[in-house]
């Protein structure tokens, strides 16, 4: 493990946890809690209701009010209601918590609950500075509709690389990393696992097979559940809970998955801080962690001991070393280029999906033709076409360059005037359009040669 | 508020931009008078009427009803009743509701209101149709409802905007007579806008002829007919022979050589002579200056088109026993019936 992976604060935090637990801070203190607890969450009713009920049963004096918001609206709401904020922010997307933290909208806290793991896979469960805490883990993977797969005679996918196969052309959906913090982590995970250039090549080749880049995370499982397309790149609980609800779907974790925590945090200036803390302690308690195993929720507890009660076959990232531990995730690297990667993906895939599809379709066709009837010159053209359709227009050093990546971050007073986001985006868009068109032309030419 | 009042329009100008719709218009209409605004379309007559009703405010000038200066009063405070050209009956109300509306606005009690509505409808002979809606009425009936609706509020002045223009010819004559008798009965000051001189002649005590936003002449119908102030009035009120020429004493000489002896003189050296066709006297004369070009038989009257040395004239002669009848090509001598010619400024 690198230093970065286990910084000093983490050890201290762990110590603090142990001390707090030893002092019995987690003991119920219902007499002192406030009467209300207002929670902003992006979680569905299936998740929030059991928790609200169980929490109120444990603390009869507290009335829990759940405000359902998608992550964007939730962040905007917290930001705009500073004068009289809700108490708890509870959501999947780690990036939303980063935004809130940067905006000084979260309050630091040290949960006292014992037995919580420090990391899931290689990903730290809690915010290093104690502003938000993982209460459950989830991993990205591939969800597929069994009826669809059968009807279209598709093989069952196992790894990300499988999704590059021509057979999946027009059968895969994903949500845009700019729209889904968890997809972003998957993308970043692939980039870190395979390296910048190769990672993008994989993403673009998979991109060639995509039928949809959804603007919301749940759009993908929705479409797979309905059978609009067969495969979706989704977070595990979407797949697991859909299966539990009776949909004909299956879910697989590829080898290079990111297991990431879903988080909770106390909002700065919360009117009911005691109840907020009690809620977090409840989430991390045995009672709270157990609720995660509910098939409708299907999230992975962050308390390794809980897996003893899990049904057979329930994924356990703390035991199953294949899950999420292959990649050592560098969260500082990820944070620095967060907006840039999102924007780049949108330019290269989301907004040019039609062109990307066309290029890869042509490449697949040419390769199929060449397989039947070899043609050296044609093969060369296809190699060039592949290169064009899978090249990223910015190298890793530039992408990690603070000044360039900074152009994609929110306007702030101290931001140096330099190149603007719009200029990069225009360049990348032009790159994508031109390369994809050329790739298609070359592949078409190659296919013609193999006739 | 009861009783009728005169209307005093004082130097009213109205309109935007270079060409005002009304230009320095002054008028005094006496209480109880039936007064007509006569003019072609675009002459400003309807605009003047609407200003009196309060739809628009004069750019300059004042309008008084009786002793009240109403220039700055809104329409609803004027108590000046107006019947619109299209009647403007409210299609969503019954006849009775239409008529009752003004009384409602005046906060007249229910019982009194019903009584007055019934009276007003009886007055226009529509008491049986009180429960109908406007769309179910004929044009004439709609007109009567509009009238009843206006009269029921007992306005100080009644304004009628081309009230007969939407009716057929026969109905028009009937309604005209009804309007006149109604006005004579009530003595209500009435202003009547029309472009039809026959209507104005038939109804009005006095009238104002408007053209181009200016008043051309004000007077009793006969006065205007016989002594028009200018070519426009002369022509607008009926057929007129207009001849330019010179006046020497009481003898008018047209450039063609045609001369007329008139009963009067004029200060103007080169006036225009206006002679109504019926005031042109024809006499058989083989050496006369006039040649009959065309003859029309109109029943009681014979109309001749005459060429007199280049001047084209129209004469109308009664068709009765003992009078000569001329044929085309006949030569006639022309003279003006005493007092039958008027001299207009050139």
């Amino acid at each position, binding site marked *: 493990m690198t230093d970065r992976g286990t910084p000093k604060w983490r050890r201290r935090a762990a110590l603090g946890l142990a001390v707090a637990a030893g002092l019995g801070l987690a003991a119920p203190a219902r007499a002192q809690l406030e009467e209300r607890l207002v929670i902003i969450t992006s*979680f*569905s*009713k299936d998740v929030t209701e059991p928790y609200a009920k169980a929490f109120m049963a444990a603390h009869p004096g507290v009335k829990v*009010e759940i*405000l*359902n*918001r998608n992550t*964007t*609206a939730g*962040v*905007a709401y917290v930001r*705009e*209601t500073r004068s*009289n904020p809700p108490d708890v922010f509870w959501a999947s*997307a780690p*990036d939303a918590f980063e935004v809130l933290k940067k905006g000084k909208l979260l309050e630091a806290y040290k949960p006292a609950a014992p037995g919580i793991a420090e990391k899931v896979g290689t990903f730290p469960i809690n915010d290093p500075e104690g502003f938000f805490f993982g209460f459950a883990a989830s991993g990205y993977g591939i969800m597929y509709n069994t009826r669809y797969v059968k009807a279209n005679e598709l093989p069952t996918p196992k790894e990300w690389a499988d999704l590059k196969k021509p057979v999946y052309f027009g059968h895969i959906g994903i949500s845009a990393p*700019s*729209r889904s913090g968890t997809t972003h982590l998957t993308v970043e995970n692939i980039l870190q696992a395979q390296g910048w250039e190769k990672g993008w090549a994989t993403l673009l080749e998979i991109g060639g097979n995509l039928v*949809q880049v959804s*603007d919301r995370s*749940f759009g993908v499982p929705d*479409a797979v*559940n*309905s*059978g*609009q397309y067969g495969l979706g790149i989704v977070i595990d609980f*979407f797949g697991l809970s859909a299966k539990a*609800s*009776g949909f004909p779907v299956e879910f697989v974790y590829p080898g290079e998955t990111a297991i990431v925590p879903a988080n909770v945090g106390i909002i700065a200036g919360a009117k009911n801080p005691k109840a907020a803390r009690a809620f977090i302690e409840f989430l991390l308690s045995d009672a709270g962690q157990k609720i995660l195993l509910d098939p*409708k929720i299907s999230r992975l507890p962050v308390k390794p001991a809980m897996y003893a009660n899990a049904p057979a076959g329930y994924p356990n990232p703390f035991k199953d070393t294949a899950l999420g531990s292959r990649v050592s995730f560098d969260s500082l690297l990820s944070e620095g280029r*967060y*907006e840039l990667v999102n924007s780049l993906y*949108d330019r290269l895939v989301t907004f040019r999906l039609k062109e990307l599809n066309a290029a890869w379709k042509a490449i697949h066709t040419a390769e199929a033709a060449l397989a039947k009837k070899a043609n050296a010159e044609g093969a060369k053209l296809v190699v060039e076409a592949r290169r064009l359709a899978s090249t990223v227009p910015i190298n890793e050093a530039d992408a990690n360059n603070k000044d360039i990546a900074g152009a*994609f971050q*929110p*306007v702030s007073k101290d931001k140096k*005037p330099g190149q603007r986001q*719009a*200029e990069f*985006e*225009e360049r990348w*868009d032009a790159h994508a359009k031109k390369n994809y068109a050329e790739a298609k032309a070359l592949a078409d030419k190659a296919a013609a040669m193999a006739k | 508020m009861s009783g009728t009042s005169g209307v005093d329009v004082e130097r009213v100008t109205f309109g935007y931009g270079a060409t005002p719709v009304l230009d320095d218009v002054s008028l005094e209409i006496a209480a109880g008078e039936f007064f007509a605004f006569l003019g072609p379309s675009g002459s400003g007559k309807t605009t003047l009427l609407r200003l009196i009703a*309060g739809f628009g405010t004069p750019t300059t000038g004042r309008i008084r009803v009786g002793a009240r200066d109403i220039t700055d009063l*809104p329409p*609803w405070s*004027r108590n000046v*009743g107006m019947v619109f*050209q*299209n009647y*403007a009956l*409210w*299609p*969503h109300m019954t006849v009775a509701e239409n008529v009752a*509306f003004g009384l409602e*606005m005046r906060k007249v009690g229910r019982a009194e209101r019903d009584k007055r509505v019934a009276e007003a409808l009886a007055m226009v002979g529509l008491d049986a149709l009180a429960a109908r*809606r406007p*769309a*179910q009425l004929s044009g004439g009936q709609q007109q009567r409802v509009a009238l009843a*609706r206006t009269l029921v*509020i007992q306005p100080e002045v009644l304004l009628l905007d081309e009230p007969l223009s939407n009716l057929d010819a026969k109905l028009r004559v009937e309604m005209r007579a009804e309007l006149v008798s109604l006005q004579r009965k009530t003595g209500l000051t009435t202003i009547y806008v029309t472009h039809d001189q026959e209507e104005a002649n038939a109804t009005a005590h006095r009238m104002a002829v408007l053209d181009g936003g200016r008043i051309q002449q004000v007077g009793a119908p006969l006065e205007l007919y016989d002594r028009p102030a200018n070519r426009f009035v002369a022509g607008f009120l009926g057929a007129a022979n207009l001849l330019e020429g010179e006046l020497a004493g009481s003898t008018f000489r047209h450039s063609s050589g045609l001369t007329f002896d008139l009963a009067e003189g004029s200060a103007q050296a080169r006036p225009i002579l206006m002679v109504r066709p019926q005031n042109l006297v024809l006499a058989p004369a083989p050496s006369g200056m006039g040649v009959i070009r065309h003859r029309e038989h109109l029943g009681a009257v014979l109309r001749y088109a005459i060429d007199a040395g280049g001047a084209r004239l129209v004469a109308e002669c009664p068709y009765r026993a003992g009078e000569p009848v001329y044929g085309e090509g006949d030569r006639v001598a022309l003279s003006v019936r005493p007092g039958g010619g008027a001299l207009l400024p050139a």
Partner: protein
Amino acid sequence: MVALEAPLAARRVGLLRRWGVSPAQLALAVLIVAFLTAFLIVPVSRVMVAAFEGPTGFTLVHFGDFFRTSLFLESFFNSLYVAVGAVVLASLLAVPCAYFLARFDFKGAGLIQALGVVPLVMPPFVGAVAMQLIFGRNGTVNLLLNDWFGFRIPFMEGLNGVIFVEALHYFPFILLNLSASLANIDSSMEESAQNLGARGWTLFRRIVFPLAMPGYVAGAALVFVKVFDDLGTPLLLSQTNLLAPQAYLRITSVGLNDPMGYVISAILVAFSLMAMAASGLITRGRDYATQQRGGGGLARRPLVGWRKTVAWSFIILVVVLSLSPHVGILLLSFATVWSFSPLPDAFTIKHYATVFADSAHMMGNTLLYCGLAATIDVVLGVSIAYLVARTRLPGRRLLDGLVMASLAVPGLVLGIGILRTYYGVELPGGVPLATFWGMLVIGYAIRRLPYALRACDAALKQVHESLEEAAENLGAGKLTALRRIVVPLITGGMLAGFVTSFATAAVELSETLLLVTRDVDAPISYGIYVYMQSPAGRGPGAALGVIAVIVVALGAWFSHRIAERERLRRGRGGTA
């Protein structure tokens, strides 16, 4: 009067005179401007200001970037293409329907008219899922086509797919406004044309349609702007290269608080305004006010023979097409699992049980909020249309434009703006004003005001001014004349506006998500959102969607009944 006051009073009178307004009208105008300022201009400006902010303060560089970015230009032309296409297709659907309904005696015309509103009620998420399940590439239609004939129709693919879905969704705007206009045509207009030898298509093309033009243009302009600004459908079809989705995606990306989203929004607003202004130019100077009879609509004829078949077939086709998503929602609400099959696997009523147990209060909330919002819209709509048409108040067209601009304001922007502006303002008792449910009502009302305004405006254009003047002449003040004469005469247009506002507010989500602060205050749309976030919630979400549709359809049907009664009363055939 004190001598000093005289000139002042005179000047005041002079100004009012120049503007052609009474003091009451002026007060009305001031109230409206205050309302719009407080709940539209200020909140939206506080958010949109980001479009003009650079590192060193005010800048227009972002607008320059917009025009230098080929993706945005491409998006702009795509949006234009889609909007024009949707207007054309929506007209093809709506114009014949409106004509048949106005022209012929239909049994069940009221039902059809009410159904005509239903396409506007596309509940969030459920609507999208149902649409895909019916028309999607593996939806019912395509699965069956593929089984039977071995091909599929790409209803929901590409820009043309967007046009298809948008037209099905928004054609009621044209239907409603055109129907209101047709109902106001004096039958004598038509009769005189028939008398001169015009009939059939010629009669429609030369006389009837031109007379109903204000309604058609009002509806078509709404469709154009709405489609141009719409993001729901493009996102549903994953067509992101359009302006509205570009703006939305940029504004809502977490952590990406970049100015470009607001720049695009500003451009959307500007272009929408231009489109509305153009539609205003088309109808300006055409005095279609019905004279004396006050309308009553075309003479109805019984439908017989092949015409009957054609008319019915067409209407049924339109109804089936436009209601398919709703049938889909209905099926979904009774479905256990529905996946990759023409119909659900099995049926159940348990979703309704869930909904009635958990979310019954939401139905009452939706009725209350949307009813209030639609009422506000109609009151404001009539007032504004009236001020624009009947006074010379300076800036009155600006007022009209301002309202229409709200059509292009993203709900999210208004929602954030309202929170930002009113969260700090506290009601008695320390509750922030922004969390009071009334703000949700105002938010709904603001963004739907354009519908009511256009409907009222079109109706008002058909009321001859002399009808009001007659009332004034008889002693009614401006406001009394408005209340007693104008309002009853434009009931049809007002109801159309009410229904449109109500229907679209009932399924609004973006503002709802920001402004709902307590579960007890939540409307149906919020409930649908919450359910639709999990696979198990699909059924209950659909059940709530069905309830929303039923609520709106009932409202529309009652409105139609009222409008029809009014029409009959005013027509020649009616009895008192």
